[in-house]
């Protein structure tokens, strides 16, 4: 089965010497058959992901193809990839017909991009693909997840009656300092992959194909750090972040906590989607570095080195140990205003608003407008009810971490249900 190989030979580039050698080596790395080079100009779309992945240690694109079709979109229950890009857009489509066209185009581009293949270039025409990812099928765990903001349901497209029940524009919490230029939007695209060239390539492709129908409002490139030394990655505070999370492989839990279900107060089209909350949180690292580690631990509610709960002694204690404070009403071991305890107070009254699916990233955009370091969190979470997140974040208005963070942007969105098959497209049931 011939594997897509990009444009290298179709336009005779391979005749230049060195590049052929490079290409041949890449084919070997991707485990293609020896006859590939002779298949110039073949139908690349016919290739599929069944080609075996080689085990080459130097291959930067080692990863998988994550299926695009499904009842749910990918990129939510998917284990978080290393690199992310959150982009918010304003939709400039003139009417509902153009809006449908926008979603058709988005669907087609995402379907192609997440297949790891690229379109062949026609000879004597501008290249269909910019070639950033080279030839061949690129497997880099790419997911592109599309969510809609409350403003899409305004008077422009007549969708007001179909808005998800709890979706709204984010109203600031007590200590927020929201910058409108990095807040909200009609659409949010969450692009995640193993490497940044994959996410940039995807964003450039989508931008070029949706020109005139939507325009970029704000974007944050971000990443998740590798485990240091083990377990959950650390954020810029040096703390392991995102330890307590629902089991994304547990269907019952995901249906209970994350996925909007059919036959509820939500509109029928929303079943299979989920509310997505994004918060751009700036960290004040200079001030943080002045805080003794023992106090940092009491601010978060976990040990810094291990990520284990505050009852743990050893630096090697696993971060998978649960914090429990039902016997500690005065907060002597786990302070009452620490991060984990306000997120989940472990009381009956708060039990229903204590579970969300977090899938956050870290950003670095120094310097900010004042010339100072600008690093922080692209906090991202998914939950079946937006009110769950709002209740939790309201509790966190009192957290001891407040002096060291400033929420500056983000927004509330609704991640669309999945695309079932080749005949389906994003937002089809919303728009028909």
């Amino acid at each position, binding site marked *: 089965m011939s594997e897509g190989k990009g444009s290298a030979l179709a336009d005779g580039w391979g005749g230049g010497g060195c590049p052929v050698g490079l290409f041949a080596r890449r084919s070997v790395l991707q485990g293609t058959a020896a006859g590939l080079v002779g298949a110039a100009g073949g139908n690349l779309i016919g290739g599929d992901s069944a080609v075996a992945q080689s085990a080459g240690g130097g291959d930067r694109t080692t990863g998988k193809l994550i299926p695009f079709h499904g009842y749910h979109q990918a990129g939510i229950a998917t284990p978080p990839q290393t690199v992310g890009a959150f982009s918010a857009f304003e939709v400039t489509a003139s009417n509902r017909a153009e809006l449908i066209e926008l979603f058709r185009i988005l669907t087609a581009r995402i379907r192609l991009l997440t297949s790891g293949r690229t379109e062949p270039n026609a000879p004597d025409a501008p290249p269909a693909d910019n070639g950033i990812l080279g030839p061949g099928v690129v497997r880099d765990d790419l997911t592109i997840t599309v969510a809609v903001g409350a403003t899409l349901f305004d008077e422009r497209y007549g969708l007001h009656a179909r808005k998800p029940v709890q979706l709204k524009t984010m109203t600031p919490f007590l200590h927020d300092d929201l910058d409108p230029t990095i807040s909200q939007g009609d659409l949010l695209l969450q692009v995640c992959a193993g490497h940044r060239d994959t996410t940039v390539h995807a964003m450039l492709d989508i931008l070029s194909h949706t020109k005139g129908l939507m325009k970029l409002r704000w974007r944050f490139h971000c990443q998740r750090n590798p485990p240091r030394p083990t377990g959950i990655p650390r954020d810029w505070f040096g703390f392991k972040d995102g330890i*307590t*999370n*629902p*089991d*994304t*492989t547990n269907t*019952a*839990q995901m249906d*209970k*906590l994350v996925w909007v279900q059919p036959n509820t107060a939500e509109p029928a089209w929303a079943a299979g989607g989920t509310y997505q909350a994004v918060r751009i949180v700036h960290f004040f690292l200079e001030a943080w570095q002045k805080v003794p580690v023992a106090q940092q631990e009491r601010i978060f509610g976990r040990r810094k080195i291990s990520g*284990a*709960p*505050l*009852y*743990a*002694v*050893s630096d090697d*204690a*696993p971060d*998978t*140990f*649960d*914090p*429990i404070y*039902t*016997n*500690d*009403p*005065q907060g*002597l*071991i786990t302070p009452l205003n620490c991060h984990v305890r306000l997120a*989940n107070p*472990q*009381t*009956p*009254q708060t*039990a*229903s608003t*204590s*579970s969300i699916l977090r899938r956050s990233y870290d950003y670095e955009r120094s310097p900010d407008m004042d010339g100072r370091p600008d690093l922080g969190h692209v906090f991202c979470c998914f939950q079946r009810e937006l009110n769950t997140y709002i209740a939790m974040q309201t509790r966190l208005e009192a957290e001891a971490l407040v002096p060291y963070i400033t929420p500056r942007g983000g927004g509330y969105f609704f991640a669309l249900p999945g695309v079932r098959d080749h005949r389906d497209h994003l937002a089809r049931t919303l728009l028909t």
Partner: protein
Amino acid sequence: MRFPRGIRTPNDGRRHGKALRRALAVGAGLLIAAGLLAAWLIPVSSPSSSAAPLAGTGGRVYVTNQLDNTVSVIDAATNKVLTTVPVGTAPEGIAVTPDGRRAYVADNGSAAVSVLDTRTGRIVATVAVGTKPTGVRLSPDGTRLYVANGGSNSVSVVDTRANRVTATVPVGVSPVSVAVSGDGAAVYVANLGSRNVSVIDTRTHRVTRSLPAGRSPAGVAVAPDGGSVYVADETAASVSVVGLGSRSSAATVPVGEGPFAVALAPDGSRAYAAALGPGKVSVIDTRSHRVSATVTVGPPGTDPFNLAVTSRAVYVTEQGAGTLTVIDPRSLKVTATITVGTSPYGVAVSS
């Protein structure tokens, strides 16, 4: 990923034994009334269950479900859940009279103790105590209930015949659990915030001694011979053995991260400590003060929390998994895992 804290699936493992069904023929009117009342009282978050009267009350295990505001009642012979009854808010510690007729539940969220008539499954009294009550224990003759008030830094003494508080004893900071000496003369209180155990003289209701007991005393149990107390030291990954007499020894026994409770076997030969983090129960030989065996009850996230020990079984509440583990003390094997409610906290056994 492990079973995460705070994520619960509603329990639907309620069952009714055959003996129960036969007993329902008696007092059918009471049954219907109790069932309707219980169905009305049960919080929306739990699945519906009935508070059916139980024929006889012997051989039962009672478990408080802290996030469901209920108590699960389990038949000790079959390990089946007989019924689930509503109690106050955030039920934590529980004690049951030796004859099994009354269970006392510390309602951590409502500053009270719910008194449960185990035959009818109904609350027959609610006794206001201090704030954030956590642990409770009965005197050997059953006439007094001692309640650790985690928020008030005191112990309430409840007269169980009148269901009234007759004394409030100031103790250390954030008392979590209490233990009563075999002769009823002393009550030991683990103070999470004072690094000590308060000793209360039950005749005068005054603290007569404060015993240093590690960093964060969370659980306390008295050896049957009265010579020492065992203290679960929550932030020191160990159990402290504190001698009570001039010749008794002290020791520190490493047991794993997050020991929240410790209990003695009735014959005093062993102590069992639950290490919440790693999900294991350590068996301590009380002569050598060494761990002689460990029993794994589940992966991290299971969260073994409290223990009740009889000669035939060791019961362990699993706060994360929402289950009650039954361990056979002879083989030290898990013989049953019973699904109860959400965030089970306390466990008590009636013979």
